[in-house]
């Protein structure tokens, strides 16, 4: 089946940074987490998908359509939440709706009303007077009120407390229940994705590091801890990244079963979280 989002060899050059040709795809009905350290190119990628930035090379397809040639059609079916807050601070929630609603072909006022009430967003309050968490919820309400099939979120939870973050994830999980909608969610707070994400795409310094099902990462990769003497040059080769401290070492391996055999029970091996995966890939010091 055709992916709902497909990025091929996407390139973009800036003065001090470039996206060097990244590729990944997302099928309908899944949540993909898009992770990477600050400055890795996550926002750039999302802006390229939304055509806020012009790409230098590569291809972006949404719903199987080219994102440049079918821009309006695609944007009618995408819901977005951007990290810098989107709306006019001086307008009220109701006024904002009056402007935005008619722009969408499939706007559903009943759904919007329901979200306003679920999120406790007062219609006559100025957007500028809402808290960070409420602004994000407002963005989400707009994103979800026009039967969007793909939700794109760019660091929606930065600066928000864990409770709001957890509420957001609940909502996202509910959205994909119908197997038709997908969520593309960029964040550097990887704990948000440890649980619910289906796929993880990880970029660093403008390049793709990996794009796989989250379970494959968490179940197959291993966080290995052991005595320093075990970290021979040969051993180092198998690590993606290693950290040494006074009392031992900790590192990430791609295949924990292999590590079990190799170290023959002399190490502690645990499931890594996405945070550790991101840290060790970025850190290096291994040679894998």
């Amino acid at each position, binding site marked *: 089946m055709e992916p709902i989002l497909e990025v091929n060899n996407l390139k973009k050059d800036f003065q001090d940074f470039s996206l060097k040709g990244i590729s990944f795809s997302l099928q309908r009905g899944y949540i993909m987490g898009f992770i990477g350290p600050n400055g890795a190119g996550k926002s750039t990628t999302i802006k390229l998908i939304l055509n*806020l930035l012009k790409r230098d090379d590569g291809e972006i397809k949404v719903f199987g359509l080219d994102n440049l040639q079918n821009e*309006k059609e695609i944007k009618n079916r995408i819901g977005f939440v951007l990290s810098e807050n*989107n709306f*006019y601070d001086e*307008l009220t929630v109701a006024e904002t709706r009056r*402007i935005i609603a008619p722009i969408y072909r499939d706007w559903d006022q009943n759904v919007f009303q329901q979200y306003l009430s679920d999120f406790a967003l007062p219609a006559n309050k100025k957007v500028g007077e809402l808290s960070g968490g409420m602004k994000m919820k407002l963005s989400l309400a707009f994103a979800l009120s026009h039967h969007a099939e793909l939700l794109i979120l760019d660091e929606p939870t930065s600066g928000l407390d864990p409770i709001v973050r957890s509420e957001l994830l609940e909502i996202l999980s509910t959205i994909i229940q119908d197997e038709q909608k997908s969520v593309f969610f960029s964040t550097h707070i990887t704990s948000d994705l440890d649980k619910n994400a289906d796929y993880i795409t990880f970029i660093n310094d403008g390049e793709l590091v990996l794009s796989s099902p989250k379970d494959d990462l968490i179940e197959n990769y291993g966080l290995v801890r052991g005595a320093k003497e075990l970290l021979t040059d040969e051993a180092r080769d198998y690590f993606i990244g290693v950290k040494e401290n006074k009392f031992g070492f900790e590192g990430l391996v791609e295949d924990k079963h292999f590590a079990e055999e190799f170290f023959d029970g002399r190490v502690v091996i645990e499931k890594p979280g996405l945070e550790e995966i991101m840290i060790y890939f970025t850190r290096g010091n291994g040679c894998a």
Partner: protein
Amino acid sequence: MLNLILKDLLLLKKYIFFGLAYILIMIIAFQNLPGTAMLSAGTVAMTYILVVNSCAYDDKNKADLLLNSLPLSRCDVVLARYLSVFLFASLAIIFYAIIAGVNKFVGLPLKVSPITGEGIVGALLAASFMHSIYLPAYFKFGFIKARLVSFVLFFVVFFEAGTFINRINSIEGSLQVLPRQGNIIFLVVAMVLIIVSYFISLRSYNSRDF
């Protein structure tokens, strides 16, 4: 696209009502100048303030990100801006008419030049001309850098606006063209100017990265 103009109106609520005040001030300031000066000056002043402030709001709220993520084309965004110039200018003229009417009715000690067809054309021309230059600068360089352009333009056009029509009349005289025809020619020139300006703006805005 029309929603974008609505957006500007909602944002500018306060300023629109001040518009009446601006016009009044212009009338007072231009008490002794030739006929159409008041109307032109008032129109230019109010249009300028409304357009520049709506651009300011867009800049402050990083609206380019929002608007270009919505199913709107860049063409819609630019067109809305240009149309709003005419909307605001028309509003200014209407406000002027209201003040003129009130003045007559209540008998204030103000000399308010009556509105003439020529006056309206002159006012619209002045507003149109000014924004034909400001808007491409705004769309290419963004609000902050375009501010310089807007300041300079405002003063130039403002002070010239009043005498613009008379200058035109004298040019018409020397070219031996009838005033009526002269008006039409200048109207056409202004229209061409603003259309060219529109396409320049569109080109700049289309290639911008946000």
